[in-house]
């Protein structure tokens, strides 16, 4: 069996880009609010459906779908934080309670989506031009996905390093009391982070949906690899997430080659990320964070 390694590498970049876009929001809110928001999966799904409605049902095209879906899902993120997590945290809920609440919120969103759009898978009908470069098979969608991930990485870097809000996010993430004492409006910083985080989840949902299909479990299907990226990268660490996303993408795609060579089912593909997740948690729960200055 000959393996097209160039394609494997390229596919790793695609997988990594998707996971990065999905993980940025999770890692930022996890770092700031200090609990893993399992409903992030449903932010992804919701984003995909809103994107679908705008692009397909309203026929307004893909770029506008991204914008609208970012805004709407971002606002949903803010509402969820304000309506559920903030009151819970104020009442002194433990991290376990917050996690369970996020799963409960996930139920509400997931089944509301199912009730609104039914459980039948939906497909984007936008056709993407496909072309070959040497041994590589590439589609327009994948190019967009990779460009979005790169743009996101650069933009987030500038926001985190250069802007006031970015500095406030970093400060609040590393020490909320000190941030508050330095006059940072911590409450506003958290709300903005939830907005951006949920909005970016919507991007991940649209790209995933356009590449495969949309159904109410779109987000849940990829949430554990996204958790793997978040944890491998170090919670709240944006630069760690970039590296981790590509490590997991690479591991999954090289792993598939390995699975075929070993004669195992390729449905184990998703298990590779789970395994990395578990091993990271056990061996090095702080992830790659030490390799980077906390951001």
């Amino acid at each position, binding site marked *: 069996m000959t393996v097209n390694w160039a394609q494997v590498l390229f596919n790793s970049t695609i997988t990594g880009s998707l996971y990065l876009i999905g993980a940025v929001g999770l890692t930022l809110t996890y770092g700031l609010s200090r609990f*893993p928001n399992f409903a992030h999966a449903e932010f992804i799904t919701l984003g995909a459906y809103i994107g679908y409605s705008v692009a397909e049902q309203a026929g307004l095209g893909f770029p506008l779908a991204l914008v609208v879906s970012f805004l709407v899902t971002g606002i949903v993120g803010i509402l969820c934080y304000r309506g559920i997590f903030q009151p819970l945290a104020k009442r002194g809920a433990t991290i376990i309670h917050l996690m369970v609440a996020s799963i409960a919120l996930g139920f*509400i969103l997931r*089944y509301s989506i199912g009730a609104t759009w039914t459980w039948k898978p939906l497909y984007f009908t936008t056709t993407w031009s496909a072309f070959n470069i040497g041994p590589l098979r590439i589609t327009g969608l994948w190019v967009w996905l990779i460009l979005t991930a790169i743009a996101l990485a650069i933009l987030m870097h500038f926001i985190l390093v250069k802007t006031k809000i970015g500095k406030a996010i970093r400060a609040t993430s590393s020490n909320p009391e000190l941030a508050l004492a330095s006059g940072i409006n911590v409450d506003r910083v958290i709300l903005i982070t939830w907005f951006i985080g949920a909005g970016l989840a919507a991007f991940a949902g649209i790209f995933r949906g356009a590449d495969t299909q949309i159904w109410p479990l779109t987000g849940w299907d990829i949430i554990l690899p996204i958790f793997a990226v978040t944890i491998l990268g170090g919670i709240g660490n944006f630069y760690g997430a970039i590296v981790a996303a590509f490590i997991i993408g690479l591991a999954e795609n090289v792993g598939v080659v390995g699975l075929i060579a070993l004669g195992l089912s390729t449905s184990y593909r998703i298990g590779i990320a789970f395994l990395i997740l578990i091993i990271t948690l056990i061996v090095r729960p702080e992830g790659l964070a030490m390799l980077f200055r906390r951001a």
Partner: protein
Amino acid sequence: MDPLLYVLDLIVFIGIFGIVALSLNLEFGFAGLANFGKVAFFLIGAYTYALLSQIGVPFYLCLVAGGLVSAIFGLLVSLPALRLRADYLAIAVLAFGEILRLIVKSEEFAGGDWGITVSPAISLVGASHRVDALVNIGLVYFCLLICFIVVQLLANSPYGRAMRAIREDEVAAEALGKSEVKYKAQALMLGSAMAGVAGGLYAQYLQYVLPGMFMPMVTFTVWIMVLLGGPANNWGVLLGAALVQIFNRGTNILKDYFILPINPTDLQYILFGALIILVLLYRPQGLLKESRIKTKAMEGVRRARNAVKNKGSQ
């Protein structure tokens, strides 16, 4: 469908999930462990039962084996996982459950997507469905009773008090010489054994096992039972198990009588989600509160306090 059979079926389900809820109560309610992978141990019990009964092992040994294998996995998982923070543990065991489901879905020996047919534990010749259900009620509630007694005795023993102390304050309990990891590992092992037995009962009652029966959803249904009923209160979690099952059936029956603008299954989970958030916000102790610890020493303290109070009011 036969209404009596429907009720009997409901009672069997309450019993099986009552066992799982009790096991989560031991882990979360008493020991403070966030087991988000409960379904993994339920799956292990069910598949152990199914595979063993295929080669002709008697049902009681299958059930015990399901519990044992599950307990061993519980111990194996706990060894590395218990040193983790609550959120890391939750994510790790959730992923563990998903890996197990992937394995039984992909491997030939476990029947893959099509699962395995399981023979019922006790099959009487020529018995009607109602009698079968009654036999199952006997079997399930016998196991439930044993689990209940074990958890109840543990909870009120010095052992259980140490467990609760660790849940409240790990550092203080460690300072008093109570090893956090030891207690939590034992809670996870015993909880997994109970979930394993419940899995075996489930497999033989439904007479098949499928990977689709063991979605993460099952874990969270059990969490709803525990949080709604009252963590660290065994009667509470049984009440929770009954309420969730009845609610489940209720919404399914309602759809036959009312035309809802929404799919009843969707509505059911939306309501479950909302219910859990409301419980966490307004009644985090659940419907039934954790009962006070009763010991002779505590009784003495209480009596002395009352005496002082009475004196003061005279």
